[in-house]
């Protein structure tokens, strides 16, 4: 596991989830088939599942119970019960589900919350997502946090059914309501800055972008990155590659594919590659290490969280502070000051940013700060589509 | 032949002794209270009709089936075989009716396959194997060349390879399951010479057959099986073929002979210039003549075949299996496309017709392999009645299956053709071979066909069913049916046919008068010896 920030429990959980989900395969379609067919029919697979469940399910359940018990002990007053519904991948995806989980964990520790996290399965209908939220709301959980825009339609519908429950949804501004807080990010702005950093650090005038899955959300990263790089050097060469197409979401969880894509870019003359590919990002860093080139991380400060062996290739990371957004929302909830509608986490609000860990971009930090200022005061408007 | 003829085994020191063997399958009792005693150094023949239970008995002896009751003793000690491996361990070897050889391997490789001698734990010791094979071959006069490719060997040679294979594994008791079924007469004689050498060297042979002349020629002792049980053990010197046959059948022997000619001058089927290239030659322009193709070096499965069958005529095709009979049948049925030639039925050119249309046009078809081509084994009889007639009354009404109609007509066939079955909802697999075949014959005779293609119509059926099928063919012929008869049973061919043609390597090589020919003459014509007649 490349992410060190995860506690040991989460790490173990993450590896279990991963083992169960993809078994380390590279072909998405094949994996899908295998998961569906052989898992069901083959005795070996079933045996493996039993063992996986015994190992993972058992430890999870105990660890989570003891964790909530210990945190509950010092709190005397009635605790808020927080329900959180993950997107596909759930806790341990090394991407935005984990970021949301981190914010939840932090708030839980600080405010003594009782929490319940529900996971999703691939191939769900909206009705099934609605049911998950409905179950949380009707079981007394308030607030309810939905991770990912996939919950857009479901949040809108269920929030209307439970006017007394506060809902929050991450990455979506469409599901509006008097009891819905929309936590959205200006990914393009942060990406603009790392794009500028890439262009400034590139000696060959050739940079790359690896996206996990070709969805509009990830295209925002690409759009910002391209705009930032071109702002520095208008004739810069930019290579772009997405690892999978929806509804195949394996591109977020396939380091081997990430590595292949990045290798191609380095071989094609790039010397800096920016990855917005979730769990596949580790592969991009490995390719950078092998090529003796540079890479840019995403979401969290990956120079700190990535595998130590490859951390030194990460010159900076585009920070998307979902954990902060979740934490803020819960903090406001406990203080009774949750406001409905859009909370936009942009550069100005500090919701997105770039990291400087390792000092690799100290030489250009001043230039980046300049761009940052221009974006904050509106001099530069960053596009959201490529 | 009454009870007096049944003598308990003469043997002093039995190599194989079976007592009270009983084996049941769903729908049949294959063996019931079988008693058998085989003396060491004898060729012991087991005779019985097809379906009498010979093969099951041998499978039990070879460990492929386990008896429900009874005891097996080998050289005096009781044994219990769970797998053929156990039987091989006890010195029993089996030569199957259908050869189990890999064509693209050499004799040596085939023989050692599965019991390779090892050199230093890993490498196969070909040298040792070759030496051992030579020794065995010389000792028993088999004349097998270890380095020959199996695909280049003739049928008789392959059989010797099979025999060598079991000898190589140390067998002292050999089971030969219908070893002469695939051989032409002179090869049969060679086989018998080999067998005599083997017993002289102290081996014991169980020889399964239903060809009584052969049995009388080679066996030292004979046991007759009827309806799954041993009914008599006799010495060949004490019986005639006819008596043996009556023991097998338990009644008087039927004869395939057709008495008076019913041939008319109305042509039913006319095949002319039929040519079919072997697969793997790439596209060949339709209509290219056989000479042209041969000149181009294309291998032909069928070469310029022409014949006519008249209303009321049975045309027999004689030939060693694999000389184009199956291809000819499939071409006439429209199951395989032809390269050149025309086929016409009742004056209409049906060359371009689909199989279905040909069937609707009045061709009935008794396929060679009823399990593969004739039946849906896991479907009930009434569904099997529909097969091949799925566009015709009484099975269908428009696009719908007429269950009631089909069931009623199935019952009719069961009654008229004496198909012995508990009911028409039984799966076809539950019926014995003869009853399956009677059902097929009944089905193919329904809907008033004008032409019947009968491919080995009595293969693997009991004598009772055989006689019934012959009767049905004769009656249909008298009523004006044209029949194309393909058979490996020369008596059947000679007895039923109005005219006979011999096929060899895809060509018609001889016309034979069935009234004048003997099975021996026909046999030599089939191997090419009589090509100029």
């Amino acid at each position, binding site marked *: 596991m490349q992410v060190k920030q995860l506690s040991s429990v989460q790490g173990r959980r993450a590896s279990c989830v991963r083992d169960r989900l993809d078994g380390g395969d590279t072909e998405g379609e094949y994996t899908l088939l295998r998961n569906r067919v052989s898992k069901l029919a083959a005795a070996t697979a079933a045996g493996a599942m039993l063992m996986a469940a015994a190992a993972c*399910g058992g430890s999870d359940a*105990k660890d989570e119970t003891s964790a909530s018990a210990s945190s509950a002990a010092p709190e005397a007053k009635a605790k808020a019960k927080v329900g959180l519904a993950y997107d596909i991948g759930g806790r341990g995806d090394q991407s935005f589900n984990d970021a949301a989980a981190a914010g939840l964990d932090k708030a839980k520790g600080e405010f003594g919350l009782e929490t319940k996290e*529900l996971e999703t399965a691939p191939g769900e209908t909206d009705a099934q997502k609605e049911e998950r939220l409905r179950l949380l709301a009707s079981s007394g959980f308030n607030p309810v946090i939905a991770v990912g825009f996939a919950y857009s*339609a479901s949040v809108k519908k269920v929030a209307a059914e439970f006017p007394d429950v506060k809902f929050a949804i991450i990455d979506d501004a469409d599901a509006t309501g008097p009891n819905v807080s929309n936590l959205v990010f200006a990914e393009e702005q942060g990406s603009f800055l790392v794009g500028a950093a890439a262009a400034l650090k590139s000696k060959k005038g050739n940079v790359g972008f690896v996206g996990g899955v070709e969805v509009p959300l990830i295209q925002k990263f690409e759009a910002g990155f391209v705009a930032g790089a071109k702002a520095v050097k208008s004739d810069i060469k930019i290579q772009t590659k997405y690892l999978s197409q929806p*509804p195949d979401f394996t591109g977020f969880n396939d380091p081997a594919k990430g590595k292949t894509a990045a290798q191609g870019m380095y071989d094609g003359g790039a010397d800096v590659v920016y990855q917005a590919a979730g769990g596949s990002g580790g592969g991009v860093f490995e390719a950078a290490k092998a090529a003796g080139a540079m890479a840019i991380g995403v979401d969290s400060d990956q120079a700190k969280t990535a595998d130590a062996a490859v951390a030194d290739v990460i010159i900076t990371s585009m920070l998307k502070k979902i954990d902060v957004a979740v934490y803020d929302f819960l903090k406001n909830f406990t203080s009774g000051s949750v406001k409905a509608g859009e909370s936009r986490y942009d550069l100005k609000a500090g919701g997105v940013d770039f990291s400087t860990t390792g000092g690799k971009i100290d030489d250009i930090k001043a230039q980046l700060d300049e761009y940052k200022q221009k974006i904050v005061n509106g001099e530069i408007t960053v596009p959201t*589509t490529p | 032949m009454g009870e007096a003829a049944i003598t308990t085994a003469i043997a002093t020191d039995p190599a194989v002794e079976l007592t009270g063997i009983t084996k*049941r399958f769903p729908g049949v009792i294959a063996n019931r209270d079988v008693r058998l005693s085989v003396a060491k150094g004898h060729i012991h023949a087991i005779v019985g009709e097809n379906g009498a239970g010979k093969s099951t008995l041998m499978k039990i002896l070879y460990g492929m089936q386990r008896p429900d009751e009874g005891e097996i003793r080998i050289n005096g000690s009781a044994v219990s075989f769970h797998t053929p491996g156990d039987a091989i361990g006890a010195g029993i070897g089996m030569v199957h009716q259908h050869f189990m050889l890999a064509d693209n391997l050499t004799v040596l490789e085939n023989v050692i396959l599965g019991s390779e001698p090892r050199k230093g734990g890993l490498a196969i010791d070909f040298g040792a194997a070759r030496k051992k094979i030579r020794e065995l071959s010389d000792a028993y006069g088999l004349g097998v060349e270890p380095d020959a490719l199996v695909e280049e060997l003739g049928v008789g040679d392959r059989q010797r390879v099979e025999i060598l294979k079991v000898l190589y594994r140390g067998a002292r008791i050999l089971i030969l399951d219908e070893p002469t079924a695939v051989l032409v007469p002179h090869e049969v004689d060679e086989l018998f010479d080999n067998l005599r050498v083997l017993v002289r060297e102290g081996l014991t042979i169980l020889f399964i057959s239903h060809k009584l002349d052969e049995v009388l020629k080679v066996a030292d002792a004979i046991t007759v099986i009827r309806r799954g049980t041993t009914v008599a053990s006799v010495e060949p010197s004490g019986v005639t073929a006819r008596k043996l046959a009556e023991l097998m059948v338990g009644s008087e022997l039927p004869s395939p002979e057709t008495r008076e000619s019913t041939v008319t001058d109305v042509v039913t089927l006319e095949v002319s210039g039929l040519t079919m290239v072997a697969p793997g030659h790439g596209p060949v322009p339709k209509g290219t003549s056989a000479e042209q193709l041969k000149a181009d070096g294309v291998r032909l499965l069928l070469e310029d075949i022409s014949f006519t069958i008249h209303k009321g005529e049975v045309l027999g095709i004689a030939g060693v299996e694999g000389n184009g009979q199956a291809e000819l049948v499939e071409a006439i049925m429209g199951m395989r496309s032809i390269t050149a030639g025309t086929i016409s039925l009742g004056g209409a050119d049906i060359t371009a017709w689909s199989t279905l249309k040909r069937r609707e046009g009045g061709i009935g078809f008794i396929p060679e392999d009823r399990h593969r081509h004739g039946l849906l084994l896991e479907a009930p009889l009434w569904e099997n009645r529909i097969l*091949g007639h799925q566009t015709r009354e009484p099975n269908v009404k428009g696009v*719908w299956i007429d269950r009631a109609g089909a069931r009623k007509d199935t019952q009719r066939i069961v009654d008229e053709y004496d198909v012995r079955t508990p009911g028409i909802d039984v799966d076809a697999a539950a019926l014995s071979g003869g009853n399956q075949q009677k059902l097929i014959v009944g089905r193919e005779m329904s809907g008033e066909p004008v032409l019947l293609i009968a491919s080995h119509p009595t293969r693997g059926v009991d004598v009772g069913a055989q006689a019934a099928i012959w009767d049905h063919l004769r009656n249909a012929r008298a009523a004006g049916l044209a029949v194309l008869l393909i058979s490996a049973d020369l008596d059947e061919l000679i007895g039923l046919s109005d005219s006979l043609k011999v096929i060899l390597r895809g060509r018609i090589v001889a016309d034979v008068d069935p009234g004048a020919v003997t099975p021996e003459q026909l046999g030599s014509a089939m191997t090419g010896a009589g090509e100029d007649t």
Partner: protein
Amino acid sequence: MSAFMERLTGRVKLDGVFAIVAPVLAVVFAGLVTSVVLLIAGNSPADAFTTLLDQGSTPRIIVLILNTSAAYYLSAVAVAIGFRMNLFNIGVDGQYRLAALLAAAVGGAGLLPGVLNSLLVVLVAVLVGALWASIAGLLKVTRGVSEVISTIMLNAIATGLTGWLLTADRLGVLSGNAIGTTPIPEDAHAPGWALIPGTPMQVNSFLIVAIIVGVGYAVLLNRTRFGFNLRATGRSEPAAVASGVDVKRMVISAMVISGAVAGLVGMPELLGGSFQYSLNFPAGLGFTGIAIALLGRNNAVGMAVGALLWAFLDSSSNALQILDISKELVDIMKGVIVLSVIIAYELVHRYRTVAAQRRVSRELAAPAEVEGAAV
């Protein structure tokens, strides 16, 4: 195809009481295995099953189960049509996704008013599904390409194609971070009825469509010439050829019909739930269908039971997470059920064979005695 595979895919029938005994045994056995897993994981099986049943019997979950099972069932039928003639249409997944996308685009354009628009959507979906499946059929009959390989490949191609089509400059409309086709106008939504007392949630009309398709499937296979030919081809292709069945045409027809039904798989969600094809559109239903077809042994009623069971497990699994039981437990249950159903069918089949053997022996014993006496 071995006899075992034939039993597995239901071409060999188990009649009468056995058809019920086998699956019931299997589900009971699956319950036992799951209990052991739960105990190992430190959870109480009683709690888990009570929760599943409690949750599954709440009115709104019942509605959810019914609506979900409609899609599952359609998918199973699509798979089963192929299975019955030995065709493994692994491509139901790609077929329904592509069909749903194109149908959603046509429906969103609002070319026709009201219910005509819904019918147009369904028609487009059926046609697209059939066409996409027919590619695999054509490849098989013209080039001998195994349909297993070609349908898996076509799934991948369908994924690429839908990804390419579902972009803002083609069929997609961007809304926030989501992208989907233009929503289908409200007057074209499939009607539903609040049939289950205690919840305002509606049972969608596609449940009826699924039932009709199931009845149609049973009638087509068992009562028509076409169905006879299809089953004959599945049981023995050489016999079918000899009987005059045009196997090539049957392959194409079966793939086309299978694909047409596959086209319907996405319709309950499209016309009864999301009203657009978006990033959120459920994927993988084609593989669920394979499991259910195996479970129901391609029998119309068996698959209906299987679809309901699957929908029940899927829809009730959230409740387990409330108990801190991993939702993967449901996957384990599903796996064990399919596995034990296969084993149960095999055991029952053997029992039946032995029973038949005994019966036949008894019946044949009497004449055997007579004959024996004569010798």
